[in-house]
């Protein structure tokens, strides 16, 4: 390939066109290891224990309420007919969506060679795994008899029946379980070289054994790396299709049904965008906390947060387009039921939720047009929290507002969540953040082997003459 011969070097470009530095200050491979891997070997600070106590208490409350639900039956929830989906499915779609940012960062941005992704990919992938784990709880609880949830999988059984593969709910089972296993595999492959680093630097025998097993004898030989890089890139390529398919399939649960307000072709791209939107908000929130508390400001820089905030802004504009498009589709349908459902979104019983969604998702993120706000902690935390709230309520509007007015006015019901519903929602956040906190202390929060690739001087010069 002679392309390299005409490549313009960075120094020849005017400053505005140069690739922005992904690091703040000098970082060497060795200092990176000390900075990222050392916290794993230390005793966590007091603040960590306080945070852990809070999140695990909330988690425990959620788990107890889940146990109460299972033991008593889902009658303890506010669900009614016609609002049979309610909180369980809202939370499922919400948490699955949170997971999407991780795969986007780790897979799609890897394909785009976005160098800044290397610093945040590990954390975002971990959030993906935890979010999908949390999400998976809800459909299982929602089936009412969770101990029979395995009936969803096609296995030869005494009853000689097979699941209905034409049902979007069945597609969902396959999409979410594939998504989880592939994300876990991808995460583990990325972690493996880091496990090797931890194995070689830790003094404790127990830790050494633990990390040695996880590193499966990784020794960093060039012949291994060549297979590793190829496999990693291929998984990233396939995971790109996967991440787009997962939330599309989730949206099929709605779009393939005949409920007014759900039966729309815009749903798959609309859901995928919303998922990435909410996911990035969560990543930004976590990154602000991680870079300040774990002293990683030179690796996760303001530039990273700036870029992620730009993605949030982009997604916000796309969401605005999707909302307008929904209204347009409703009007263009000339169908009184669709008209009614759409008006119910903004002027019905749950009209307040509709306006809250629009405010949080469309109006507030517009602050990010200002560079100074994209780089200010209070502003980005405010927007990230707003987006998280907004995206949760968007699913609330889609599910509860569409369902509570059925085709027959005699079937209309107002839905009200019970305390158990709210407790389990809070518990899901507790579970998620407990897992995140544990992760931050047990595993390296930054992919060191991936970061070392993009450090200055990490790669040999292209004109180095080392290979013809």
């Amino acid at each position, binding site marked *: 390939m002679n392309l390299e011969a005409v490549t313009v070097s960075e120094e020849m470009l005017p400053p505005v066109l140069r690739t922005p530095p992904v690091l703040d200050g000098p970082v*060497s*491979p*060795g200092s990176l*290891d000390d900075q990222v891997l050392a916290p794993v070997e230390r005793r966590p600070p007091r603040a960590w224990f306080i945070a852990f106590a809070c999140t695990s208490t909330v988690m425990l409350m959620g788990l107890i309420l889940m146990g109460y639900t*299972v033991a008593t*039956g889902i009658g303890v929830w506010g669900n009614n007919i016609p609002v049979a989906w309610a909180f369980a499915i809202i939370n499922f779609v919400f948490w699955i969506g949170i997971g999407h940012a991780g795969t986007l960062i780790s897979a799609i941005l890897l394909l785009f060679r976005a160098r800044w992704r290397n610093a945040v990919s590990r954390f975002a992938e971990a959030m993906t795994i935890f979010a999908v784990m949390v999400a998976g709880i809800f459909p299982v609880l929602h089936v009412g008899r969770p101990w029979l949830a395995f009936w969803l999988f*096609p296995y030869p059984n005494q009853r*000689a*029946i*097979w699941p*209905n*593969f*034409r049902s*979007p709910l069945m597609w969902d089972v*396959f*999409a979410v379980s*594939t998504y989880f*296993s*592939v994300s876990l*595999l*991808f995460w*583990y*492959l990325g972690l493996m*070289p880091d496990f*090797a*680093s931890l*194995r070689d*630097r830790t003094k404790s025998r127990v830790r050494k054994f633990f990390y040695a097993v996880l590193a*499966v*004898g*990784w*020794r*960093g*030989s*060039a*012949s*291994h*790396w*060549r297979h*590793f*890089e*190829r*496999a990693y890139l*291929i*998984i990233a390529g*396939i995971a790109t*299709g*996967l991440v787009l*398919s997962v939330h599309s*399939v989730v949206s099929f649960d709605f779009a393939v049904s005949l409920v007014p307000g759900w039966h729309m072709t815009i749903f798959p791209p609309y859901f995928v965008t919303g998922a990435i939107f909410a996911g990035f908000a969560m990543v930004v929130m976590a990154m602000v906390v991680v870079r300040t508390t774990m002293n990683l400001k030179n690796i996760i820089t303001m530039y990273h947060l700036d870029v992620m905030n730009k993605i949030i802004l982009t997604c916000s504009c796309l969401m605005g387009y999707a909302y307008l498009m929904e209204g347009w589709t409703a009007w263009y349908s000339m169908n009184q039921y669709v008209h009614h459902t759409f008006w119910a979104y903004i002027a019905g019983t749950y009209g307040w939720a509709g306006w809250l969604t629009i405010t949080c998702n469309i109006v507030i993120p517009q602050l990010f047009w200002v560079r100074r706000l994209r780089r200010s902690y209070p502003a980005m935390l405010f927007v990230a929290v707003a987006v998280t709230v907004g995206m949760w309520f968007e699913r609330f509007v889609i599910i509860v507002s569409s369902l509570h007015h059925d085709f027959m006015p005699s079937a209309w019901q107002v839905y009200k969540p019970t305390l158990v519903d709210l407790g389990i929602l809070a518990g899901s956040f507790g579970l998620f953040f407990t897992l995140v906190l544990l992760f931050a202390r047990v595993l390296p929060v930054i992919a060191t*082997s*991936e970061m*070392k*690739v993009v450090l200055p*001087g*990490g790669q*040999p010069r292209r004109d180095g*003459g*080392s*290979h013809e």
Partner: protein
Amino acid sequence: MSNRTFSVLGLFDSSQQLMDAIPVVKARVSGRLEAYTPYPIHGIEEALGLRKSPVGGMVFIMGLIGAISALAFELWTEGVDYPVVTAGKPLFSWEAFIPIMFEVTVLFACFTSGLGMLFLLNRLPFFRHPMLRSRSMPLITRDKFALAVESEGQVLDVDRITAALREAGAQTIEVIDQPEALGPVSPRFLLRAAVGIGMACLVTGYLTYWCMKLFPVSVPMVHMLDQPRLDPQRRDSYFKDGFGMRMPVAGTVARGHIPYTIKTEDEAAVLANPLPRTGSVLSKGRQEFTTYCSVCHGILGNGVSTLTPAYGAKPANLVADKVREYPDGRIYHVIMMGKNAMPSYAAELTGDERWAVVHYVRVLQRALNARDTDIPKEIPR
């Protein structure tokens, strides 16, 4: 000594030094060259003369197998083994099978890529590799770059290789020995293994028993197996009066029920037969008459019953003058309420069926009391 040498390895500070060293060492010594780096170095495969990774081909083949097997499985289960029509779709509705086919393809492809790379191509896990015990390993996983000449069975010329590595700029040289051969299995190890396997069997055995036998019959798993209900005709303490069944709410009428308020046969005279005398009504009447009435009143309605004389009661002769003079409503009332030994047939016959029977009784009366004038003058030939 030297025939037990696995490799001679030199450490470098940067990827650039490593890349510069490779051609220098390659020219000086023969033997397998291998580099150890903390992260992938671009262009090192070509420099070391490594072949391109075959992961792509493996992934393509396994992805294809995933796609075909998922589609075939879905078509077989939904179209052949368990053919149930859902949502009015054809049995072989392949369009609806695409999402799952896609997911299974992704699953097969990704796991082939990840696990195939680890287990097949890289031959991991490999915990006894001599490199893992070297002094250089912790440096390599941190920030150093190693170039090694490795033995593939042949005896390495340690001095010559060391000189070549030094010349190429290596700061540190390490000679790594072959690992000790594994000794024979000790009885102590065998005992431990046996105890371990035994324990595992016990635990799995009990867990299986628990899952299959105990878990399904515990609370709340049994909640839906035992459902309290009120049975008709049974005493139940749920309601105060002790009956399981309920009386209809005052003033309500059951669907399809028409109240019948006539008390006596004379009052019934006002009822008029609402049905026309058509062929289908009469044949309906004949069917119901034959089914319910003919047993006692005889197939001709003349009171010659098929009952045994021991029964005692004498069924009415429906074609006698007395009954011929009854208005339609009176016959209807008798069917409705019964007469003498005859019970009510209200439950057996619907309103329309009763009126049809009345029509048919009139037919029998006319047929058995025919006049000469009823015979047509012209007998059709």
